[in-house]
């Protein structure tokens, strides 16, 4: 999340709407912004309907993987501290890039806790968008 926050201006410059969607109460948006440094659009999908439609995993297997523990430790070592959990801890995330015609130009689905789309992949996907 920290990398996304650091690069959010890039997406603005490319005229791409960047939105972060979680599942917790919108009351926690401000805390999330302070914790992550992300200042862009934030939404909540408390029903998890969009997560489900996109096929993002939900379950103990993804949540409890060994590598997710190492990723969390690595992030902590870099100074990225995770705050208290606001939303569904069992729900994994992902990302989707949709162009104005409704075409999916990039899709990522986390397989375990700590999985997230690589920032260079997101930037590359945006750079490869075809002008209409």
């Amino acid at each position: 999340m920290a990398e996304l926050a650091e690069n959010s201006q890039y997406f603005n410059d490319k005229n791409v709407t960047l939105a972060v969607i979680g599942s917790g109460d919108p009351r926690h948006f401000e805390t999330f912004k302070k914790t992550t440094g992300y200042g862009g659009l934030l939404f909540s999908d408390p029903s998890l309907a969009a997560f489900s439609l996109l096929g993002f995993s939900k379950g103990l297997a993804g949540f409890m993987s060994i590598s997710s523990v190492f990723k969390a430790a690595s992030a902590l070592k870099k100074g990225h501290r995770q705050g208290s959990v606001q939303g569904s801890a069992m729900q994994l995330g992902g990302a989707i890039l949709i162009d104005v015609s409704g075409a999916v130009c990039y899709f990522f689905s986390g397989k375990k806790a700590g999985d997230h789309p690589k920032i260079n992949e997101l930037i590359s996907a945006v750079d490869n968008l075809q002008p209409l």
Partner: protein
Amino acid sequence: METNNVSVEDLGELGVLNDRNEHVKLSTLWQGTPALLVFVRHFG
């Protein structure tokens, strides 16, 4: 590219809540400009 056979049309019909607890239709996010939606496990 993995796509999971996403139906953007169906996705666009879904709603999310903004910071004022208002319902926002997802399709409004990619009307006029491309949209990058990043789904996070939790706000924390």
